[in-house]
């Protein structure tokens, strides 16, 4: 073979190699909004944001609910690529938004408190401009702590009666008419702890309400709140609020800090005991018995921050039902744990946030199969700001496969 022929062969091989390995050039594109990270920063020292929930608006924007300056209510709208559109603070007397936005058909609601009278409002939010409309108010339901909106449109609102030292539970019809109200003795004064919870000057406590379809029995409501000296998960009859059973905690030092009823009648739970966190992706719960959360067998997750919020949600990812636990670590990184809804086995873990400390706000699924993770970050290690992570469907699949 001559030198000339060698060169011809080398050059042809060179060209073929280049063409064969350069596919990543033509495929190096991604649609806007599929993936992004955004930190909504301001130049002010004194701005403090505590993000609570994020909602996807018509698959083209995101609405973020936050608390600012302790318990004032802040709304922020971002485009589908996370670009900032507008922000606003709700005027007085609305304070203490519960850490969730509630969706019914095309309407979006939030539940909040009257700053002076401590009563309860349900506000309908116009996601286009952030205008709010009072659709329900009841100044007798004081210190609203948690709410649940059922698929049928019924509301279940948990409050605290400071004069009677009782937890109140009120069910409203879809037309906002009171169907029943029930109170549960706490037997001690917990107002100071509740005020610290609301004003974020003390431990944030995991108040929540929910509905469980039951397993062969009729469904029932549950609420996590003060009952009989403890933070307890109490199960009640949906027709009159009469208690069915309870899973007691230990005062406000040991408690269930998140629960989600699964379709098979089991619960996905998280419990906290003196700052130690346990995730229980599948647990049989007898709603008609008296039990204790300390008796739940579970693995301890020492990486989870002692007082971290824990979010449990289920989403269908490519036809597969997945339980997602979202929380943050002691090193202030957001963590997503994915479990199989069929057997509670762990599928994967995703860690987010290295640049700055991050704390979990909430998560929501998007129409493109991805996930939006709302968090609080401390930019420059000191200024609390809202952050959004948008994970693509492929990134979610990578986590669970």
């Amino acid at each position, binding site marked *: 073979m001559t030198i000339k022929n060698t060169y011809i062969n080398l050059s042809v091989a060179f060209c073929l190699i280049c063409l064969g390995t*350069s596919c990543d050039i033509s495929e190096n594109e991604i649609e806007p909004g599929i*993936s992004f*990270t955004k930190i909504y*920063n*301001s*130049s002010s*020292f004194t701005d403090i944001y505590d993000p609570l929930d994020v909602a996807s608006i018509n698959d083209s924007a995101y609405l973020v609910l936050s608390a600012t300056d302790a318990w004032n209510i802040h709304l922020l709208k971002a485009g589908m690529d996370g670009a900032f559109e507008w922000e606003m603070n709700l005027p007085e007397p609305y304070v203490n938004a519960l850490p969730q936005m509630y969706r019914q058909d095309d309407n979006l609601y939030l539940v909040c408190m009257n700053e002076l009278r401590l009563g309860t409002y349900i506000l309908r939010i116009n996601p286009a401009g952030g205008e709010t409309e009072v659709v329900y108010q009841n100044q007798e339901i004081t210190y609203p702590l948690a709410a649940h909106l059922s698929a049928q449109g019924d509301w279940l609102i948990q409050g605290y009666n400071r004069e009677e030292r009782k937890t109140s539970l009120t069910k409203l019809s879809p037309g906002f008419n009171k169907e029943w109200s029930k109170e549960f003795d706490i037997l001690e004064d917990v107002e100071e702890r509740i005020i610290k919870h609301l004003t974020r000057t003390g431990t944030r406590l995991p108040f929540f309400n929910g509905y469980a379809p039951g397993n062969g029995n009729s469904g029932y409501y549950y609420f996590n709140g003060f009952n009989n000296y403890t933070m307890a998960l109490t199960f009640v009859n949906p027709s009159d609020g009469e208690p069915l059973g309870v899973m007691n905690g230990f005062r406000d030092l040991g408690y269930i800090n998140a629960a989600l009823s699964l379709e098979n009648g089991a619960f996905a739970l998280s419990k906290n005991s003196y700052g130690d966190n346990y995730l229980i992706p599948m647990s049989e719960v007898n709603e008609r018995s008296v039990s204790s959360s300390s008796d739940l067998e579970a693995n301890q997750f020492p990486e989870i921050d002692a007082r971290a919020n824990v979010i449990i949600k289920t989403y269908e990812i490519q036809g597969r039902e997945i339980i997602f636990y979202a929380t943050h670590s002691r090193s202030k990184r957001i963590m997503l744990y994915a479990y199989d809804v069929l057997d509670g086995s762990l599928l994967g873990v995703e860690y*987010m946030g290295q640049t700055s400390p991050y704390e979990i706000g909430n998560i929501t699924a998007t129409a493109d199969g991805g996930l939006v993770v709302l968090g609080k970050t401390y930019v420059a290690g000191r200024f609390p700001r809202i952050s959004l992570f948008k994970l693509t469907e492929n990134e979610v699949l990578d986590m669970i496969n």
Partner: protein
Amino acid sequence: MKHIIALFFAGLCCSFSTCLAQGGRYSNSKNLFSSTQGFIGIWSGVNFSTPIISQSYSDFALIDPSADILSDKKQYESATTNLGTQMGLSAAFSINKYLTVVLSPSYKTLNYQYQSQFSWQDEENSLNYLEHTYHHEKVLHYISLPLLFRFSPMGRRLKPYVQFGGYYDRLLDAQKHITTEGIDQASGGQVNFKENPQSTDISHLFIRSHAGLLGGGGASYNLGTIIFYVDGQYRYGMHNIVNAKERFSGSRNITGFGNVQDDLSIKNIEISLGCYFPLKFLTKDFKPVIL
């Protein structure tokens, strides 16, 4: 982009074939052995990169855009700051006296740097002030495969030349070094701080391929059994080298502010020194073929 590159290399092949054909005709009229020459050599040098930004991104959104104090625009350094190096082998084939085809595989580092600044101010006391400056340095390691056509219109011992061609680089890995410094005037006095650099692997934030066109010139000096040359190339990257699919993953998991990379291509000036050794010798007196 893939079609453009395919056309480019197809064109290279056509012109290469044409040159070979012309070389063949030339050889037929002369002595076939002494009408061509092959060379093998080694070379190394430095390069200076300039990123060309096609689309800018940030993981920060200002919710008070009227506040002029805060900025997240990346300020890219000039090419003279972005120093890289390269070294490699070179195989050249002189088809005739004027035209040489060169394949010079090399190991190459590209470097580009930028900084971004942030500041915060106490609204109630403007003397309380915090400023952070993040200096980012990206170092990309490539195996580079340039294919060059070199024209030497004049000279015998000292031969200036011009050249053009294309290149295909394959990313080996990429590193990021970030240094944070700033002014903290919010803790009772002014403190200037500078933290130790942090480094991390960011290979997944770039695509593997990097292709483009190149042109340049140089001169060679023939000492008989060894030829020294100095070479200059201007390399024009033809596409975005940042991995769009991983654009935001860096800001989730890699230390440092402003990790969302802009879409960019690279312009690069490369200066090298090298030497060639001729491969064909006239056996009678062991003198190399000189065209």
